[in-house]
């Protein structure tokens, strides 16, 4: 066998790159990681099934099976009530993928390798967030399409529709930060998945996503009314449907919640990445 590694290094080790170079590397490294993550996603049919087919089944299930039994006071009926809820839930559930992927990469030593390389240290998390956000956005658009096929209609103009999708995406990114932290801190695929169920299921189902909160027992309403998923989904519903649904309070509460989540969990995720072992 011929010489495999020529000792001449690809780059001189003791010349520190300037700020401009470092910024352009941070961008290109993030894009490389994003590209890698999206490639992995489209290569594995199971991931596509989990991220796209599952929410479509939820739409059909609630629209045609449970929906008839859930009375709502929303113009256009239950399907209009349902769709913002399903979209919010889809954004939240998409973050399972974030947590699981990071836990897997940690376990397999991929993160160790990347951290031992002269690449931008921010790129692994940033690339993960960018890829997962793109994936989430694609899924949301598919769900909106399916919603239209089963009778859902935006009734607050194009601006409202876009604002709703944006809010759903920002909400998804916030949950992504929580998921990234759990994935890196727990570091085991199965445990991460189980833990995700424990906090995401109650948060999304004990909310205004699928049923009006007034239909719940009083003690549960207290939780459901004041938790972020309800605030975000109520705001999304107002943006999507208009018709005098209260927008301002819900939007402010959503922004407060999402800001708080970012402030707490983004640093936690970054710290878990730095200390990842």
């Amino acid at each position, binding site marked *: 066998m011929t010489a495999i590694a020529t000792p001449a290094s690809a780059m001189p080790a003791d010349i520190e790159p300037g700020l401009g170079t470092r910024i352009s590397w941070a961008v290109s490294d993030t894009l490389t*990681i994003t590209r890698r993550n999206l490639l992995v996603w489209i290569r594995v049919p199971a991931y596509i099934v989990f991220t796209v087919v599952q929410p479509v089944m939820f739409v059909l299930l609630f629209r045609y099976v449970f929906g008839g039994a859930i009375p709502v006071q929303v113009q256009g009926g239950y399907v209009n009530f349902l769709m913002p809820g399903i979209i919010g839930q889809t954004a939240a559930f998409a973050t399972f993928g974030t947590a699981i992927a990071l836990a897997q990469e940690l376990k397999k030593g991929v993160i160790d*390798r990347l951290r031992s390389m002269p690449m931008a240290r921010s790129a692994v998390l940033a690339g993960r967030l960018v890829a997962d956000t793109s994936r989430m956005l694609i899924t949301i658009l598919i769900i909106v399409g399916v919603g239209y096929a089963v009778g859902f209609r935006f009734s607050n103009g194009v601006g409202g529709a876009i604002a709703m999708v944006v809010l759903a995406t920002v909400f998804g990114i916030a949950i992504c930060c929580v998921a990234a932290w759990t994935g890196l801190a727990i570091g085991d695929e199965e445990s991460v998945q189980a833990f995700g169920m424990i906090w995401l299921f109650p948060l999304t189902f004990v909310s205004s996503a699928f049923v009006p909160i007034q239909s719940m027992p009083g003690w549960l309403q207290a939780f459901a009314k004041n938790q972020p998923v309800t605030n975000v989904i109520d705001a999304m519903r107002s943006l999507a449907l208009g018709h005098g649904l209260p927008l301002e309070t819900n939007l402010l509460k959503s922004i407060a919640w999402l800001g708080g989540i970012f402030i707490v969990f983004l640093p936690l995720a970054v710290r878990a990445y730095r200390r990842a072992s």
Partner: protein
Amino acid sequence: MAHNSGGPAILVEGLTKSFGNVHALRGIDLAVPRGTVLGVLGPNGAGKTTAVRILTTLLEPDGGRALVEGYDVVKQAAAVRRSIGLAGQSAAIQEELTGRENLEIIGRLYHLKWPEARTRASELLEQFGLSDAADRAAKTYSGGMQRRLDLAASLVGRPRVLFLDEPTTGLDPRSRLGMWEIIRSLVASGTTLLLTTQYLDEADELADEIVVIDHGKVIAAGTSEDLKGKVGGDVIEFTVPDRTLITNALAATARIGEGEPHADPETGVVSAPVGGRGSDALVDAVRALDAAGIQTRGLALRRPSLDDVFLALTGHAAEEEEPAGRRRGRKKKDSSPMDSERTAS
């Protein structure tokens, strides 16, 4: 070129690291001259992985210092990362992607331009015998192929110092030999290599110098010949087919050798260091075992292996299975560093 072209490629002084009250490293010193191979030998939980993680900037030490190519692993971590390659205990590759994609992505993350990243990937695939499988998903690769791809990934940036943490753990014997072949050719091209292993034959085969680590401390260092010299000569070895007679066999051979004979209760292999007495000791052993009425298989005199060295240095064998107090006096202390190493991998 590195700024300390005269000094050693790796220099470690008094390195310590604890996880809670578990002392993974208790003051390690190492010096690896350029272009040489250091084998770091020790059982699970000895602190090998912790040392590698510190040297590759993944973990900060509590005390002492470590230089790689003259750069401090804490203060000049970025320069260290530009000088090193790391292949850990498992294949750190993206299994859903092809071998080629894996290497191209690593190349891009080393800031090679696309055409360069492609060329480098093709070169490495060719050199590691993966060209035919280059465009298949890595999850279809055999264990040996995945480890080769992982090693190839660690070389994309043409590192001057390479760290291989147990590169053949879990490989079948044939893949192991293939891996050794590749590692030898790397070294022939001038790369400095630090290799950790639990396998004594591996260190014997590949390393110029060996350090033996146990409980976070270097307990011996030198060439494989130096270490074998510590056992002080030849070893008589035989197998006792009837495991119930092992104790008798130990008693019978206790007086012929220069040190305590050792028996592996599972395989029934008994070995006794006999110093310079060579064939006289062999004759004595045959007589003693015969007198005790113990049947043996494959009784022979051999040069000491690193197994014997490890036994002589630590009082326990290197590849003994770890937990549940099978080892004398190391139950409590040892279980935790092992755990920390496992989570660290």
